[in-house]
């Protein structure tokens, strides 16, 4: 009844998703760095690296389905595999959002910088922190650490709203010349989109945290307040 081979394969699957998490994190950290430093070369590497992450996602799907079909895992093992499939989905979307940030960054790099929006930096900090905590709590299977993440999401939403407000003001402020006004609006809107990407990454980090609690404890945090 001992299932050594299955458990070896399950460990292998975990290694694969750790690798995916590391790549997604690198992609996101670099996206933030490229945006802040206005580094379009760095931004381009994120776009180029996305294929690797997509490939790993397919690999995780393949391995997971194989184990589900052939091994009929139970209990914690079953929750682990289902959780890994969900987490890989969130990681892939985080990587997509990072690409999105990188694309906006390349546009912004071609023009002079907008005035600084402090809430944007705060949003970058908190979304980075949430994502890092989510990945770490998964690695350590630390449900208690994971449970701290959803509460941070409200703060991320708040920063996103502040960014929006600030940039609406920037856009509304009159400046001379039609061309200049259009360009300012375009830069502002690109920055608003980046802010929205960051807020989505905070959401998906929250999802990952919920999956960690599901794997560790078998309870679904999601929608629990609404039931």
């Amino acid at each position, binding site marked *: *009844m*001992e*299932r050594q081979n*299955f*458990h070896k394969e399950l460990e292998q699957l975990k290694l694969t998703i750790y690798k995916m998490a590391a790549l997604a994190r690198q992609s996101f950290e670099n996206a933030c760095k490229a945006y802040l430093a206005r580094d379009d070369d760095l931004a381009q590497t994120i776009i180029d690296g996305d294929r690797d992450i997509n490939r790993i996602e397919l690999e995780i799907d393949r391995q997971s389905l194989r184990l589900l079909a052939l091994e*009929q*895992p*139970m*209990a*914690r*093992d*079953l*929750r682990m595999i289902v959780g890994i499939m969900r987490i890989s989905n969130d990681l892939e979307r985080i990587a997509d959002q990072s690409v999105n940030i990188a694309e906006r960054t390349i546009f912004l790099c071609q023009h002079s910088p907008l005035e600084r929006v402090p809430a944007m930096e705060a949003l970058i900090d908190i979304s980075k922190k949430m994502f890092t905590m989510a990945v770490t709590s998964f690695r350590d299977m630390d449900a208690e650490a994971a449970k701290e993440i959803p509460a941070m999401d409200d703060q991320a939403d708040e920063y996103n709203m502040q960014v929006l407000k600030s940039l609406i003001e920037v856009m509304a402020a009159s400046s001379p010349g039609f061309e200049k006004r259009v360009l300012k609006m375009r830069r502002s809107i690109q920055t608003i989109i980046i802010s929205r990407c960051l807020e989505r990454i905070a959401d998906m980090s929250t999802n990952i945290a919920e999956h960690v609690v599901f794997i560790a*404890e*078998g*309870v679904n945090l999601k929608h629990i307040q609404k039931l």
Partner: protein
Amino acid sequence: MTDTIKFAVKKLDFYYGDFKALDQISMDIAEKQATALIGPSGCGKSTFLRCLNRMNDLIPGIRVDGEILLDGENTHDPGIDVVQLRRRVGMVFQKPNPFPKTIFENVAYGLRVNGLKNKAMLRESVEKSLVDAALFDEVKDRLNQSALGLSGGQQQRLCIARALAVKPEVLLMDEPASALDPIATQKIEDLIHQLKKHYTIVIVTHNMQQAARVSDVTGFFYMGRLIETGDTETLFTRPKLKQTEDYITGRFG
């Protein structure tokens, strides 16, 4: 849970001579549900199952402490008619064991023992039991042929029909599909889903996926003890105890 309790087992100890095979088992078995017993070989599943209709009585040197109540009545009371008990609590074994008689006579056997002589009634009962055991269509044209000519899976369903013929309330099944091929196994599992609408089923299986598929409640036995019991879905997705978790995920056993 407002399920009616069919069997209430209270602090059951069971000995083969000096060997204590069951230790302080307490378990309620709900009526018209399928209860699965799982656990590594030798943990006492079959012993427990046989306690429920006192099949162990046939083994010399056994001793039973504690209580097993069937519909509130202690099955080990001196006044209990054991033959009547086994009529109410039927049993199907691992290896199909049809009698070397015709298909019809195999199913009619218990009815004849009970004194039923009316041919029409016999025939009606036999056919109904075969229908309930999902075998009738396959054998209706050869009821007077030997049961030994049936396939293993058909023989097992014949044994189920034989058990059903005397209208039991409970059906005990000890690894009923372990000697069968996958298709025959599938038929038995489908049958269990049907049967539990009308009967209380207790099934021992070494196949955890099978327990997960067919049962409503699962009990995990280990070294003569009932470690954990709970509704099947919960037990197989998030068991409470690490020992259960380790067993069902194949980390020991």
